[in-house]
């Protein structure tokens, strides 16, 4: 990977929480993000998938330094965020914005839509009232919101319109990098399609870079250029979108992708469904974190945790037996209905 064409580089990012359980006195340590490293190139949509509790949200908060990482560093345009002073960090934070999941909870019900959209402008002291109003109207148009709503309140908007306002708010300081944290998961299917198309159009118009986080694999597959898969706080596989779906290397990615149902009655699951559930993070796992549920696990997997190895063409996987397993996802044939 050429050294300088990345926008953001994560190196060995780790975040550990200490939870003082009400039971005993010693506080249990929970490693939500465990030594994650990857780059995001300029103008790229980097998809991050994983089930709930795998550390996706903690990762982006640590990456933007909204919460302090326990160790590791984050390079944004070559400068390490964790070595910056608070003032410098605030200046850099203008270029990194976040769009959140729940449209009904991400807008302060007591502020008008104009104030909500212009809040980043006011925080970073962008011009006077008139310039801010002009910029807000421009943003309303960019995200497809009728301008006459500007004086209204959030309760007058539908879910889709609220999410458009959140996007307008994120765009107000014309950022370089936007994190979409489950940005469409709370929306209905028809509205979801509108917002996904809007995000992709805006990316092209404004040359944005996205970190798109979701548990919905079909959505991530549609919108991303490269996809990372997380499990139990670790990055277990990373590849280009088509490369990931055509040559799966990690058993968990395989289980995840085969579990996604298709909108076609003929489709029938050919392979055994992943049994059991995610082990509790309070009890750290020796060796590979997935070995307890992995059908291919052996003694080696239970001892040494696998490293994220490069399998060529930007395809990385953290599994001792990656490449040796035959994990193909050809679609099922018509069979007796489930």
């Amino acid at each position: 990977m050429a050294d300088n064409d990345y926008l953001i580089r994560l190196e060995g990012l780790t975040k550990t929480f200490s939870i003082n359980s009400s039971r005993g006195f010693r506080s249990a340590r929970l490693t939500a993000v465990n030594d994650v490293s990857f780059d995001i190139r300029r103008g790229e949509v980097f998809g991050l998938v994983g089930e709930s509790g795998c550390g996706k949200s903690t990762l982006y908060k640590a990456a933007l330094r909204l919460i302090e990482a326990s160790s590791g560093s984050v390079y944004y345009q070559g400068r390490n965020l964790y070595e910056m002073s608070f003032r410098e960090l605030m200046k850099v934070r203008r270029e990194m914005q976040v769009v959140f999941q729940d449209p009904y909870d991400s807008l302060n019900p007591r502020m008008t839509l104009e104030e909500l959209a212009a809040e980043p402008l006011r925080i970073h002291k962008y011009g006077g009232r008139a310039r801010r109003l002009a910029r807000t109207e421009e943003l309303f148009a960019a995200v497809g919101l009728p301008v006459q709503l500007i004086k209204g309140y959030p309760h007058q908007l539908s879910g889709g319109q609220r999410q458009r306002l959140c996007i307008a708010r994120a765009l107000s300081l014309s950022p370089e990098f936007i994190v979409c944290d489950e940005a469409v998961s709370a929306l209905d299917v028809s509205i979801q399609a509108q917002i996904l198309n809007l995000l992709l159009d805006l990316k092209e118009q404004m040359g944005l870079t996205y970190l798109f986080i979701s548990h919905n694999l079909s959505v991530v597959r549609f919108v991303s250029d490269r996809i990372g898969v997380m499990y139990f706080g670790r990055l277990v596989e990373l590849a280009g979108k088509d490369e990931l779906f055509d040559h799966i290397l990690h058993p968990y990615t395989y289980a995840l992708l085969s579990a996604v149902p298709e909108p076609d009655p003929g489709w029938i699951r050919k392979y055994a469904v992943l049994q059991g559930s995610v082990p509790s993070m309070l009890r750290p796992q020796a060796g590979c974190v997935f070995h307890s549920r992995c059908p291919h696990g052996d003694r080696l997997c239970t001892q040494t945790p696998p490293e994220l190895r490069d399998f060529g063409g930007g395809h990385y996987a953290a599994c001792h037996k990656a490449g040796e397993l035959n994990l193909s996802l050809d679609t099922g044939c018509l069979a007796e209905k489930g």
Partner: protein
Amino acid sequence: MRTLLSNKFIMLGGAMILAMLLIALFAPLLTVYPYDGLDLANKNQAPSLEHMMGTDPYGRDVWCRVVYGSRVSLMVSFAAVGVAVVCGSVLGIVSGYLKGGFDLAAGRLIDIMMAFPSLLLSMIIGVALGPSTRNMCLSIGIPLIPIFYRVARGAALSVGERTFVIASESMGSGRFRTMFRHVLPNVLPQIFVVLSMGMGGSILAEASLGFLGLGIPQPTPSWGLIVNEGKPYMFTAPWTTGFSGAFIALTIWGFNLLGDGLRDHLDPRV
């Protein structure tokens, strides 16, 4: 605003409070007899035409005493609640939102204050500061602080987790700016509900202290004092404490009803 008035609790409570305020305001117009001085000749007269509520053990007209007493009692109660709501809410919001060391320290202080029954705390502070109307505001106000602290802290805790607060922080807004622009406006409604209840508690405290003889000192007429004066003649001349007690109860009821109405109005589910 329209739906605010449609809630019958708010209307009823509001009306009672308004009536009480008007009585206190236009006291000189409503009273014929002097509220102080001494007229032992016709002491403890039963309610009659000229003395609507009878006379107290010092011969003064009970109605005039009550009307003028309402001025002092309401003023002290408003001041006491004012002190309590400001301290309690500020402490509560800051510890609920900023958490960390401040939350622990403030929490400890409030635990200590809550260890004392509020009446006992009022007594102790009264002893320390000495009896005067100004000190009464503090000795009634301070025990009310924990009530506002707990409501404000609980509300700030839950609002702090709302996405729009996290969004504001991620936009680069400082902790204090976020607290004033986002947390405070969404915590205030819940504080108003408790404010109304607090007023009721404050009037109750003033009357109880007065009844125990530890309230507002002798010359200034206040509801607690009237009740205290009438106490020894409870059986022979019950109207002194009867009417002043009724006035106190009505005012407190007004504030409680207003509080109920505000809570129903705020919480659509109930």
